[in-house]
């Protein structure tokens, strides 16, 4: 049995608490990286990360990319949409096909 979590700045993620997702407010990179690792180890199957943090955590995310769990998914925060989520999808296409053929 797994759980779900959201990591991000407080304003962006508090809304998710009411859905029953675990919320883990993080402000800076070091703290977020530590939280992410701990969550991945302790039975969280899906971890949503706000886009601004997702960008900073690229190395950690890369580590979990080829593992079946956890799924680390970028979501837009209150500060708006940076488009990194879409870029991430394009990256998979590029990796598989060689160039981004779906744009």
């Amino acid at each position: 049995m797994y759980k779900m979590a959201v990591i991000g700045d407080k304003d962006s993620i508090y809304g998710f608490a009411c859905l029953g997702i675990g919320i883990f407010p993080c402000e800076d990179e070091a703290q977020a990286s530590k939280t992410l690792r701990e969550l991945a180890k302790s039975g969280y199957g899906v971890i949503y990360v706000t886009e601004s943090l997702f960008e900073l955590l690229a190395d950690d995310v890369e580590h979990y990319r080829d593992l079946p769990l956890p799924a680390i998914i970028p979501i837009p925060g209150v500060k708006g949409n940076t488009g990194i989520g879409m870029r991430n999808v394009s990256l998979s296409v590029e990796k598989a096909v060689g160039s981004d053929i779906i744009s």
Partner: protein
Amino acid sequence: MAVMNVNPTRMELTNLKKKLVTARRGHKLLKDKRDELMRRFLDMVRENKELRREVEQAILEANKHISVARSVMQGQALDVSLMLPKQELQLDVTSKNVMSVNIPVFEITKRSARDSDAYSYGFGFTSGDLDDAVESLGKVFEKMVRLAEIEKSCQMMSAEIEKTRRRVNALEHVLIPQYTDTIKYITMKLDENERSTITRLMKVKDMMLKEQIESHKFQT
């Protein structure tokens, strides 16, 4: 010509021929696997992009409501109202095998089925925008889970496709040419040996004939 470093013997030749057959078979299978993976992957990626667009839009919408709520209410009051959720989620993860890639399938079970349990606060002292935010998040939530599932699957499949593609290319451009070239080299070498044996035998036969004729002449 990429000839392997082998002895040009008949035994080596049969071995190589067997290996070539296996390599060709493997190449064909892997190529089929790659094509099928690619087909499914492209379908999935299209769905992924579509879902992501929807989810991002909905979350932005919800965030707008929360921002308004935060500006209307006191920050602490807002935090407090969201602090103790009534709802609890559990995530069931099973895996599905797609062309030997184990992609995850997520399924959520809520502790209570009532949607109204998403509201963990009394309506008396909170802004209506907060209710809107919670409602819109609740609506998009199923899509978010599906997004997580499909995005993870896409990542895993793209890794698998990359791996398979490398294998196919290695077989097609390195291993199989190497085998065919070596087989050609060995057959040519063996043929050459045979020819040289024949000429040698003919030469020996000639010499023996000549000797016999001469001895015959000598006797008469």
